[in-house]
């Protein structure tokens, strides 16, 4: 089974802190994604990556950056956390062979910014 793990299930940070959210997948998938999920707004794509060191902006990249130095790891960085970044963050991966839109998700990180 594909496994996507995220570094923390719950995280509490202060406004202005730099925050790192880590995601690791163990199925050699080419594509990796970061979403945030908010009530009434659904899942919104922040960034995705289709290869090592490659990244593409999603619908809401402002205030975020990403890093993909290794194929299995995709990191989301909040350079200076703000209260409006309080959300559930979901990481996903998919393969080109299996269908790039058939995504496997991690359990999510619920981030609270105080």
């Amino acid at each position, binding site marked *: 089974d594909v496994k996507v793990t995220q570094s923390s299930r719950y995280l509490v940070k202060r406004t202005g802190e730099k925050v790192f959210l880590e995601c690791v997948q163990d199925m050699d998938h080419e594509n990796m994604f970061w979403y945030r999920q908010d009530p*009434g707004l*659904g899942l919104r794509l922040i960034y995705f990556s289709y290869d090592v060191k490659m990244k593409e902006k999603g619908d809401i990249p402002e205030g975020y950056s990403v890093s993909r130095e290794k194929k299995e790891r995709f990191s989301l960085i909040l350079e200076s956390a703000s209260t409006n970044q309080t959300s559930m963050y979901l990481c996903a991966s998919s393969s080109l062979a299996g269908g790039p839109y*058939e*995504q*496997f*998700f991690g*359990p*999510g990180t619920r981030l609270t910014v105080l």
Partner: protein
Amino acid sequence: TQLLEQSPQFLSIQEGENLTVYCNSSSVFSSLQWYRQEPGEGPVLLVTVVTGGEVKKLKRLTFQFGDARKDSSLHITAAQPGDTGLYLCVRKLIWGLGTSLAVNP
């Protein structure tokens, strides 16, 4: 702009009832995925539909893709409490807001 409309937004039913939820768009889909998300967890892929008119079955779940590939439906027969969750449709990387289903024992 919300490109995928899901209805109903909320549904609460008794165990054993049947239900249908819908996913609609004004645009033609090339393919569409359905996911289920349980509280506090990530979405889990249920099915991909590709061909207009296609019907796929997954145990008590039946997925249908409209002939014109602008709409899709998910029908659950004899719902069970384990079916409780948020049902999401997605086209490429655009997600619907989901139907939140509660099946009461």
